[in-house]
């Protein structure tokens, strides 16, 4: 069981690495910000599996913290876009 879960951790981590490679290359900043979201899902899955494999139950709390906070970088990015639009004198981007 432990071997299977360890292999699964390695596999998901490798997928994460490949995804990061492709996202960070761009072309736009929106693509790059997705890297944080990618770690928000893939990283949490890795963390949960790792906690089970290494029998560290508190890893779930770290995953909970990451799940809560991984959104924040993306929100900061969106606010950046927002402030630029506002500076340009165009309407808020959250309009219908």
């Amino acid at each position, binding site marked *: 069981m432990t071997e299977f879960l360890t292999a699964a951790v390695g596999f998901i981590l490798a997928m994460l690495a490949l995804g990061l490679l492709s996202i960070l290359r761009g072309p736009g900043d929106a693509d790059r910000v997705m*890297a944080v979201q990618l770690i928000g899902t893939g990283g949490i899955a890795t963390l949960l599996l790792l906690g089970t494999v290494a029998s560290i139950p508190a890893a779930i709390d770290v995953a909970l913290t990451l799940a809560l906070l991984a959104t924040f970088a993306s929100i900061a990015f969106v606010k950046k876009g927002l402030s630029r639009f506002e500076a340009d004198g165009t309407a808020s981007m*959250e309009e219908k």
Partner: protein
Amino acid sequence: MSVATAFEIVLAAVVLGLGTWTIVVRETFSATVGFVAYGLLVALIWVRLDAVDVALTEAAIGGGLGGVLLLGAAARLWDADLMAMEAPGEVARASAAALSVLTAAALAGAVLLLPDPAPTLAPAAVANAWATSLSNPVTNVLMAFRAMDTMLEKVVLLLAIIGVWSLAPDSAWGGRPGPRHQADPRGVLAFLARLLPPVGIVVGIYILWTGADHPGGAFQGGAIVASMWLLAIMAGLADTPPVSRRSVRFILAAGPGLFLVVGLAGLLFGAAFLSYPPAQAKPLILGIEVAMTLTIAATLGLLLAGAPERSAEP
């Protein structure tokens, strides 16, 4: 080579790859995103090193608050990025590279040559856990055995916020920090900012509460609460308070103040500064932690909000 070691090598390679990307990439924004991703992944290494307390801190700071701080700064410096910055010449680069490689090699050598058996203070920390009747050794070290460090750390936070506030221009002295954020009250961001904070505050309190016996504690809990406050601010649901307000200053000083009072009481009635009588150690430590969580949440939120930019009256 076992499967587990292969996993560790992959993890180290991904983290190092992100670190390298952060340093060598041309645009500042990409570097910032790379560093936020790096901060999130380092939490995985800390879990793997069985240091879950640090992993929680790293996840809350590196991933959440640090990301907002750095990306916010990158966004506001947007135009500055276009300005040509003269890079150091070839010789300076080469010598910097040589110096860095030398430093890294020396550290790597030190890691490979670490003494065996490793020196450790863990047995002493475990053996003295009875003195506080808390079973999380890290909380014991932070709040009792090296409580002076933790108290001074809170003073550093206070000094940092005083430093940030002193950067306010005259017109906004004592006013509200940061710009007033606006968002559609029926939009996605406002929806998230209404849904997430109740959950986040519960999780923050849980992390504080569980810190007595399991990984967690005041700082990690406070950081989560602070980020929930920031979310409400960024969605335009709340505004930053004017920094001259009395209640704000009271909350900022409450944590270190209570710590200092308890420490002086130890000096007067007990053995030494910051010594707790064993019978009351647990309630005293928990009381300090609750006060510190509030202080930390307020301090971190205001640190991220930045220097006052608008006068207190709208």
